[in-house]
């Protein structure tokens, strides 16, 4: 029989019942989580993109509007009227009531000479012919500059328009209020760390960046969102968890600037992180719970299997024993029967010889008494030996008997103590405790009291023998009932049986006692009697630990002959 260690079974169970489904479950959960996170990430990016695009439109609108305003001014006025400072001041004032964006106004001739100026700075009369913005304006007709310091030495940018009359070309320029523009651009709220700013094509800040980055400084992270840049497209840079920020960079339509909206990744992906954490905790917790329950179940199952296995082995052993006993029973019946016939003849012959001899006695001489005595002695001896053989065959037949019993009502709980009393003295001499645990409400059963007495006495004697020369000897007898039987157990903590002797224990002539001490018929007779009474007797034992004989007697004996096995 294969002996699986329970741990191996447990491991196998855990693996088969748990690991595979769990791996599958985890894979499924992980896949779902992955896609969900990915999707949510994209959603967040798209949201940022949308915000950026909307904001870009707003800023483009602002530029378009300001351009249109200047266009309107230059188209609806003459150079002469515009060159008048007073008029220009009035115009600026009007403009500023309309929008706080305009800081100043300036009028220039074709060479970049500042003809008139309205605003806070003293810039009148300066020549702008060599400034980049003026050159750009001359070529393009409408010009929006990058932020620059200019003559006023303050960061600002301008919008300028050109008018070509038939006679001459002239220009109007307006400076846009940096703070106003800054506010316009910055005026965006995304999460805690969301911010918007504008860089030019070289990555120079055109507006302040709230999280650090002053006007006209180089944006050190510029390469992050220019690498992916292509014309008139919005795109996301960053967005991987190893980056600090998630970017949405959108080129403005009105100017070669880029509006950047960025948000710290920790902030942007916080909901995802939280949901990922929650799902991870759920998966981990669920997995742990499944693992624990699975482990417990597997342990229970393994234990149950182990118990079942032990029971099965026990049962197999009992079956083997029962089969063996049946076989031996049949054989010994035959043998005993066959031997009884010659014994009968011997007995008869002996009787005949003895009688003939008695007839001879008177015919003999006086001196033959001594010889006669010897012959008589021999006759007696033959008689004794025949009787001995008869005892043995009787024992054999008892083992395999189809019993002859007188059924009377028997109370186990009164019968057992009587028998214990019979061996009590011997037990006390050997220093053995006899503990009786009997259900006082055991029903009367129909059984053969004499035969039961023989059985109990035999078992007690065996136990006492097993406990000889052992300290702390104890015999426990308990009797309980279940639905159909009374169960009587005789347990001792004596020398026990080895596996081999256990299988032979009920066989006739099998004894562990030294020669001359036991016939080996005790347990076989016990077995025969219990079988005959419609019950069962089984033995469980552990070498040097003790033995337990369990007798099962039916509550209702069907009064019929019971064949052994």
């Amino acid at each position, binding site marked *: 029989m294969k002996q699986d260690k329970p741990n191996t079974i447990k491991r196998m169970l855990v693996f088969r019942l748990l690991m595979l489904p769990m791996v599958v479950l985890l894979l499924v959960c992980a896949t779902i989580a992955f896609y969900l996170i990915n999707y949510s990430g994209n959603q967040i990016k798209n949201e940022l993109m949308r915000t950026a695009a909307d904001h870009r439109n707003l800023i483009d609108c602002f530029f378009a509007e300001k351009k249109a305003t200047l266009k309107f001014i230059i188209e609806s006025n003459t150079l002469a009227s515009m060159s008048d400072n007073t008029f220009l001041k009035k115009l600026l004032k009007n403009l500023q009531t309309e929008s706080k964006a305009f800081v100043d106004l300036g009028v220039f001739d074709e060479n970049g000479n500042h003809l008139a100026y309205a605003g806070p700075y003293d810039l009148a009369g300066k020549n702008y012919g060599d400034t980049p913005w003026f050159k750009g304006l001359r070529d393009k007709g409408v010009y929006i500059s990058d932020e620059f310091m200019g003559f006023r030495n303050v960061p600002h940018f301008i919008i300028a328009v050109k008018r070509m009359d038939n006679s001459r070309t002239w220009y109007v320029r307006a400076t846009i209020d940096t703070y106003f523009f800054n506010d316009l651009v910055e005026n965006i709220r995304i999460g805690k760390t969301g911010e918007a700013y504008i860089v030019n094509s070289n990555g120079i800040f055109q507006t302040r960046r709230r999280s650090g980055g002053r006007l006209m400084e180089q944006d050190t992270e510029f390469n992050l969102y220019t690498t992916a840049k292509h014309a008139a497209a919005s795109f996301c840079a960053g967005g991987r968890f190893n980056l600090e920020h998630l970017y949405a960079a959108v080129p403005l339509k009105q100017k070669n600037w880029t509006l950047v909206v960025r948000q710290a990744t920790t902030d942007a992906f916080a909901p995802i992180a939280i949901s990922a954490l929650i799902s991870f905790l759920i998966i981990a917790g669920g997995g742990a719970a499944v693992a624990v329950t699975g482990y417990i179940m597997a342990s229970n199952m393994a234990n149950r299997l182990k118990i079942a296995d032990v029971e099965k082995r026990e049962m197999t052993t009992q079956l083997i024993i029962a089969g063996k006993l049946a076989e031996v029973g049949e054989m010994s*019946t035959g043998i*005993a*029967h*066959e031997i*009884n*016939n010659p*014994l*009968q*003849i*011997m*007995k*008869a*012959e002996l*009787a*005949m010889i003895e*009688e003939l001899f008695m007839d001879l006695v008177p015919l003999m001489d006086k001196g033959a008494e001594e010889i006669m005595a010897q012959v008589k002695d021999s006759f007696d001896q033959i008689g004794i030996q*025949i009787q001995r053989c*008869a005892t043995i*065959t*009787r024992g054999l*037949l008892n083992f395999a*008997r*189809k*019993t*002859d019993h007188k059924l009377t009502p028997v109370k186990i709980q009164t019968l057992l103590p009587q028998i214990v009393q019979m061996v009590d003295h011997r037990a006390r001499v050997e220093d053995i405790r006899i503990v009786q645990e009997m259900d006082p409400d055991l029903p009367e059963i129909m059984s053969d009291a004499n035969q039961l007495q023989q059985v109990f006495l035999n078992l007690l004697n065996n136990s006492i023998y097993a406990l000889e020369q052992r300290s702390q000897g104890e015999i426990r007898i308990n009797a309980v009932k279940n639905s159909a039987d009374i169960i009587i157990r005789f347990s001792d903590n004596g020398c026990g049986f080895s596996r081999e002797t256990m299988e032979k224990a009920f066989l006739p002539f099998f004894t562990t006692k030294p020669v001359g001490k036991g016939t080996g018929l005790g347990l076989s007779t016990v077995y025969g009697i219990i079988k005959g009474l419609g019950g069962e007797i089984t033995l469980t034992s552990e070498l040097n630990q003790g033995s337990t004989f369990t007798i099962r007697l039916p509550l209702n004996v069907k009064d019929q*002959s019971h064949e052994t096995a």
Partner: protein
Amino acid sequence: MLNTRLMIVDDEERFLKTTKGLMEKRKCIVSTALSGIEALEILAKQEMDVVILDVKMPGMDGVEVLRRIKQTHPLVEVIMLTGHSTTESAVEGMKLGAFDYLLKPCDINILFSKVMEAVDKKQTREQQMNQGGKDR
């Protein structure tokens, strides 16, 4: 009782011979039969008081022989002798009206005293029947 008419039925020839001798020494008139059939044939010819009958014999077994004896000669007492007491044969034997049941190997004196008891019983019954006959 003297001159008890006894028949011993057994398949062991030597047993028959010796037991016959022993019983004759005890003043019985002994017939022997090696099988049930033979026993029934003898019974058909001769009157018997007691039959000692082995249960286990080849051919017709003891119980069957007992049944037939009781059918044809209800007054004959039968002592069953067997190598071992089996419930069926014992119970059946007693039901069929065997006088007693003895186990082999059986002591001759015990066997003889059983025979005597059986004869007493038979005589008692015969007397009762005769009485009954007279009463009628």
